């Protein structure tokens, strides 16, 4: 019986040689400069308009407060703006700039913006055809007629997936930092950032607020992004086992991820939607202290929902893969 390490070796080589990671890296290398440029324009614009960051912050607070009095804005948006105003005020009160333009803050906000769609899509590039490609090319007949139990083969594929998800998260951060550093400088690891804002109904609880360094903050974000990406990858693995065609499993997963984003934005009065995995993907909102898409969601809740979905998907994938007949 071949050992698991050899099987993981095989799977890692296959994903690598299919150039899946190369595509992900290429997409990042093309996209990040675009965002860096946009960010740079904003920074230049602000620099010309405001004397220093304090007056800029004050202007944002005023803008958002004014918007709150408008009748036309839906209640969910108001809630979000109210929370933002409180946060900004806290930063102003403590004389801390929340948006110093540097590579670390850029990387942080890039992660926050990519966690619910961009990172899942890149993960799907690896995960969606992990099993279905073996089926559609027929290589599964060679793979499953070797003296190895099927659960070991699927386990090796899942472990490989964990490795590549980690690699994608690390590569995203590394590339975002390296590329944005060219424009903003590589400083900023030690700057303070406040965490612990707890949205309570329409208000924000400030009792637990404390400062951490930007570096620690980024690391925590990476952990959260990694976890939600891993759950997406695991569900994609299950879909890849269930559906024979790679295209079908990719489309299914993309539809799930995108519909989650839409649902989250609807900030719906449909409360039971919070048990869907796809509205829970943006774990970084809890770190930022902005209100979650649906009331009643907390970090613990989202982690539990994602964990349950991931575990169920993994169990289904193993149950089906070890028993299914390879008919064609």
């Amino acid at each position, binding site marked *: 019986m071949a050992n698991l390490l*050899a099987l993981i070796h*095989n799977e890692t080589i*296959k994903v690598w040689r299919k150039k899946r990671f190369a595509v992900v890296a290429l997409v990042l290398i093309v996209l990040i400069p675009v965002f860096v440029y946009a960010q740079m324009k904003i920074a230049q614009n602000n620099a010309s308009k405001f004397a220093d960051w304090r007056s800029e912050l004050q202007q944002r607070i005023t803008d958002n407060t004014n918007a709150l009095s408008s009748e036309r804005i839906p209640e969910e948006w108001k809630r979000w703006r109210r929370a933002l105003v409180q946060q900004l005020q806290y930063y102003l009160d403590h004389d801390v700039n929340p948006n110093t333009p540097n590579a670390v803050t850029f990387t942080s906000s890039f992660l926050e913006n990519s966690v619910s769609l961009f990172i899942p899509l890149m993960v799907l590039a690896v995960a969606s055809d992990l099993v279905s490609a073996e089926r559609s090319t027929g290589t599964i007949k*060679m793979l499953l*007629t070797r003296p*190895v139990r099927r659960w070991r083969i699927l386990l090796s594929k899942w472990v490989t997936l964990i490795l590549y998800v980690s690699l994608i998260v690390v590569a995203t951060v590394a590339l975002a930092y390296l590329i944005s550093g060219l424009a903003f400088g590589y400083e900023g690891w030690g700057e303070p950032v406040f965490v612990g804002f707890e949205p309570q109904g329409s208000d924000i609880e400030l009792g637990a607020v404390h400062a951490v360094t930007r570096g620690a903050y980024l690391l925590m974000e990476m952990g959260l992004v990694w976890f939600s990406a891993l759950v997406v990858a695991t569900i994609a693995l299950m879909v890849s086992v269930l559906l024979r065609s790679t295209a079908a499993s990719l489309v299914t997963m993309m539809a799930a991820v995108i519909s989650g984003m839409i649902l989250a934005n609807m900030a719906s009065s449909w409360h039971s939607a919070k048990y869907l995995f796809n509205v829970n993907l943006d774990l970084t909102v809890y770190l930022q202290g902005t209100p979650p898409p649906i009331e009643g969601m907390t970090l613990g809740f989202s982690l539990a929902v994602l964990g349950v979905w991931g575990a169920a998907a993994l169990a289904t994938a193993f149950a089906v893969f070890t028993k299914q007949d390879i*008919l064609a």
Partner: protein
Amino acid sequence: MDKTRIESDRDVILSVQGLKKNIGRKTIIRNVSFDVRAGEIFGFLGPNGSGKTTTIRMLVDLIKPTSGRVLVCGEDVNRHPELALRYVGCIVENPEMYPYLTGWENLEHFARMQEGITRERIREVVDIVQMDKRIHDKVKTYSLGMRQRLGIAQALLGSPGLLILDEPTNGLDPKGIKELREFIRKLADSGMSLFISSHLLSEIQLMCDRVAIIAGGEVIAVGSVDELVKQAGSYTLWQFDKPEAGLRLLEGSGDVAIVGDGEHRIDEALLASLPGAIVTVMDEESIPEWIERFVAAGVRILAVHKTAPSLEELFLKLTEGESVG
């Protein structure tokens, strides 16, 4: 009697016992049983859609049988694939390898899946299939014949006691088929058992020692190839310059049966090459006498042709025999 039974059991490398498979409500495989002995080339003959491929997939744990079992060297394939499949190399349908890896990397990939396969062994199988020149090229650049050879190399990696090949001549040119046949014979001479499926009786006849014939999801005959072929019988085709005269002579005799147009299944291409030929069933030994008789009667013979027995004919014979008996 008992003693020979035990001895033949020890020689059995693959034992298929009462296989049955339902897919949905449909029964695909009704009853398939046969034994493959050590060192023999065993043919598995059946028309397309007879359950050949489903059976082969059950032999290598790609499909779980509804009931019955498959033993390789005494190990149950379904319960302990990690033990049983050590003794098996197989190519199910086409030899599909990873096109984005080189031939060598593909072999390394499959070598890692079984303990005890060294680099030397990989080099050995590459030599056996004579692929050393192209082995470091990507598989997507290979021709079908080369993929076939790489597939066989992969199947041979674990030095299996049993090699299963599903329609191995499909898509090969005549030269390739001939080489493959010689290759298979060589493997069998080295003590390996081979299990080869085909829908062509002539293929099986040329390659195999024994054969199981499957039709409608059931094995309808198992035996030595020669015996079965003899049962199939064959036709003798006569082409005369004056067909009417020839026909009259043939009809006049009691031991020649004339076969009408719709009653035989002779290859259309053959009939087209012998226009106006009269199809008969007759004793092989009487053909020289008949020729003399035609010559004496002034009927000139353009061609006499004995057909090779076809699978269809054999099926008719076998199923007829069943319904009578």
